[in-house]
């Protein structure tokens, strides 16, 4: 919750903040993210006592979520491919979705942009867009599933992350690839290594055969069809290969970290 607290800087227009936070965000004034007052009232009534106070409930829920991470890692089959679809199935228009309006999406100049690489890799040189475009690419038409429940079919083209990890000499026995993004407030998200090495996990540079538009993450989005949408970071600026769990924008607020589909 540190992130939410950081957002409440004195002097910052609260109205703007509230508008920027999506309708899905918890009340910014409320630190606890698990339960609304009214709904907890109902639960207290049900159990007839206050044993399930919100602190211990929160602890319990966090533990179960960690357990669910382990269960999902166990269920995850590195060879199972996400279903693919014909081009005719692509959702038009493909929805833009973020915790800010599309006008606030990062406006990146492709000539200045570089992908920083750090952590457990042999070659830490930064990559320009032109250099990345020269790597082999593949295309997929897959279903993007949002944590909110809706889904949309899109077409992404890019370089398998497993190939790139090999090129940079990454230690693929490490636990995570951790992505930092240019979104306002600094988006980030960890990706477990097994998923990073999945054949359909790609560094996407194109959407529907066109250079990735600004709304969908220009210049680079990590497309992971075996994960929920928020685990598919857009506007990526750096990748760190690491054994440490560094958290993520939504993960820190309570979304299940593995969130596999």
């Amino acid at each position, binding site marked *: 919750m540190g992130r939410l607290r950081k957002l409440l800087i004195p002097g910052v227009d609260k109205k703007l903040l509230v508008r920027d936070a999506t309708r*899905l*965000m*918890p*009340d910014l004034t*409320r630190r*606890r*993210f*698990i*339960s*609304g007052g*009214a*709904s*907890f009232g*109902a*639960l207290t009534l*049900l159990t007839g006592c206050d044993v399930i106070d919100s602190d211990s409930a929160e602890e*319990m*829920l*966090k533990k*179960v*979520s960690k357990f*669910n991470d382990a269960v999902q890692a166990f*269920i*995850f*089959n590195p060879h*199972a*491919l*996400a*279903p693919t679809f014909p081009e005719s199935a692509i959702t038009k228009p493909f929805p833009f979705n973020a915790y800010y309006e599309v006008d606030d999406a990062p406006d990146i100049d492709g000539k200045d942009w570089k992908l920083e690489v750090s952590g457990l890799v042999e070659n830490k040189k930064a990559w320009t867009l032109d250099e990345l475009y020269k790597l082999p690419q593949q295309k997929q038409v897959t*279903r993007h*599933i*949002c*944590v*909110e*429940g*809706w*889904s949309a079919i899109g077409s992404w083209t890019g370089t398998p992350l497993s190939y790139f990890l090999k090129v940079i000499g990454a230690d693929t026995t490490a636990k995570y690839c951790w992505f930092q993004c240019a979104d306002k407030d600094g988006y980030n998200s960890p990706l477990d290594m097994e998923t990073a090495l999945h054949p359909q996990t790609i560094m996407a540079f194109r959407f529907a055969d066109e250079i990735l538009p600004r709304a969908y993450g220009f210049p680079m989005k990590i497309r992971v*069809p*075996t994960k929920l949408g928020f685990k598919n970071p857009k506007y990526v600026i750096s990748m760190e290969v690491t054994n440490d769990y560094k958290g993520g924008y*939504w993960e820190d*607020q*309570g*979304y*299940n970290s593995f969130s*596999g*589909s």
Partner: protein
Amino acid sequence: MTSLAAAEQRTATASRVIQPAWVRVMHWTNAVAIILMIMSGLQIYDASPLFNSLTFSRTVTLGGWLGGALLWHFAAMWLLMVNGLAYLVTGFVTGRFKKKLLPISPRGVISDAVAALTFRLSHDDLSKYNQVQRLLYAGIIAVGIVIVLSGLSIWKPVQFQYLTALFGGYDIARYVHFFCMSTIVAFLAIHVLLAVLVPKSLRAMIIGH
């Protein structure tokens, strides 16, 4: 007859137990799990409603926001699945389902329903379910199985993609899941009403006789 079934019959005749302890424990565990699942599920639904004009008030939801609701949903799901599986296995192995829920015939259901609506249905022998009860209980057990399977299919549409395909794909599986929930809520309304109208059945479900 299995030893469990034999034991059940022995205790049943010895103390005129109407609802054996395992049924009571599992029934109330299930009730808690179902209510947590429904309340958190409605909050999840609100993040991306299937029907434009239908959203749910915070007074009936659990979790406060999408992230909190998902944590509740994916925690209570274990309670629901483990308890439900134990209930199914015990119900089949002890022969309880066969003994209590069968046979069901359309004619029997209609005549018992008519008798119930004209207040002529006897509730003297609580150890025997009438045809309407049998239909409702067998039906809701089936719905319970479908809601768990459709839930798994929208939770893991890649890893369990054959299951998702069985439901007609991800989007349709969401409707199936929601429809099952609605059926359970409708069942619950009737079920609780009937339990209150026949308080001794509620007593039997709590203390056994």
